[in-house]
């Protein structure tokens, strides 16, 4: 009798091979491994808890549906990451239809202040933190899609330029230009907080 290896001990690529053979539980293991990272990326784009959950789940579903196309040339996570970023960018195009006011309300209610401005001790500081979240959300929203993507992947996710270029399917030089422009625009928009 063949011993069944617990899915938790298998590598991503081995799990993918099992999924391609029809093992759905192997895919559930992949979800468990990557759901938090996927959620955080989606949250960087959506800045809303429920939206981030939906977006990351949508990306997992797409990966599951198209798992047959995964050829193993890159790692599963790199492949999935690209799907996730595309889902987030599509979301952003859809979300453009919603009003800026709705967006800002969401940002204020969902985004927690960053460590640098956390533990506000006075109402004034709390107000500044809220205002900052509001302004950051609005400033990011104003960036062109590619600049915003490059910036989020670098600044929030810490990907290397090469990884960003791979994810965005563009040249590294182009990513550098997008990143520089995004930083310049954000510095102008948020100069009062610097």
């Amino acid at each position, binding site marked *: 009798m063949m011993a069944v290896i617990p899915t938790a001990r298998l590598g991503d690529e081995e799990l993918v091979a099992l999924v391609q053979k029809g093992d759905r539980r192997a895919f*559930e293991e992949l979800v468990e491994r990557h759901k938090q990272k996927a*959620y955080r990326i989606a949250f960087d784009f959506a*800045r809303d808890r429920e939206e*981030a959950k939906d977006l990351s*789940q949508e990306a997992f579903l797409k990966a599951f549906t198209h798992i047959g196309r995964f050829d193993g040339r890159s790692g599963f996570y790199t492949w999935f990451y690209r799907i996730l970023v595309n889902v987030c960018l599509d979301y952003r195009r859809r979300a453009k239809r919603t009003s800026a006011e709705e967006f800002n309300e969401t940002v204020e209610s969902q985004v*927690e202040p960053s460590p640098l401005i956390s533990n506000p001790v006075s109402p004034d500081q709390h107000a500044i933190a809220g205002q900052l979240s509001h302004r950051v959300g609005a400033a990011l929203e104003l960036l062109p899609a590619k600049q915003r993507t490059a910036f989020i992947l670098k600044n929030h996710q810490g990907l290397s330029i090469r990884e960003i270029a791979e994810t965005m399917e563009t040249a590294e030089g182009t990513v550098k230009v997008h990143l520089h422009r995004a930083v310049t625009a954000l510095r102008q928009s948020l100069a009062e*907080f610097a």
Partner: protein
Amino acid sequence: MIARDKPASKACRNLEEDLVLYYYGELAESDRRNCEAHLKDCEYCRASLAEMSKLLPITAAHDEPPPTFWSDYSREMRQKLDCAAERKLWWRRIADLFAPIPMSALATGAVLLLALALTFGKGLWQPSAPAPDDESFMEVLPIAEQLDFFSDMELLDNLDLLETFGGQGNGTA
């Protein structure tokens, strides 16, 4: 010392992009050394770098959902995967129905169907002629009957009779 005509946070123009890459640790070794050498001497670029170091980290949104969120996440995901697997299975069953038929035969069949549809369905897609408006037709008819042209049409009506007479004449000759 900072010159009056240049804001403290404004870096040297040719180094702006490099400073962003330096901040993110993305400069190649030699460029990084050049950048650091420049930073020692340039107050503008140092101020610019300090501003980036202060501003950029606070642009990231932090969200730490509670543990219940993650258990709900996994449960919802399993449900969604169930539906997706069901759909996948359904498509596979359809594909299996056509699997024994070679692709070339399927393609030929599709082309034939298209050709038949184009040949026999052509007339069906043409818009039908509008039905004559009976009331307006009845209004025009009495006027038309009074026209001389239509009275001359009686000659045409009698052509058959004339031909008959002509045929009889030829036969008797």
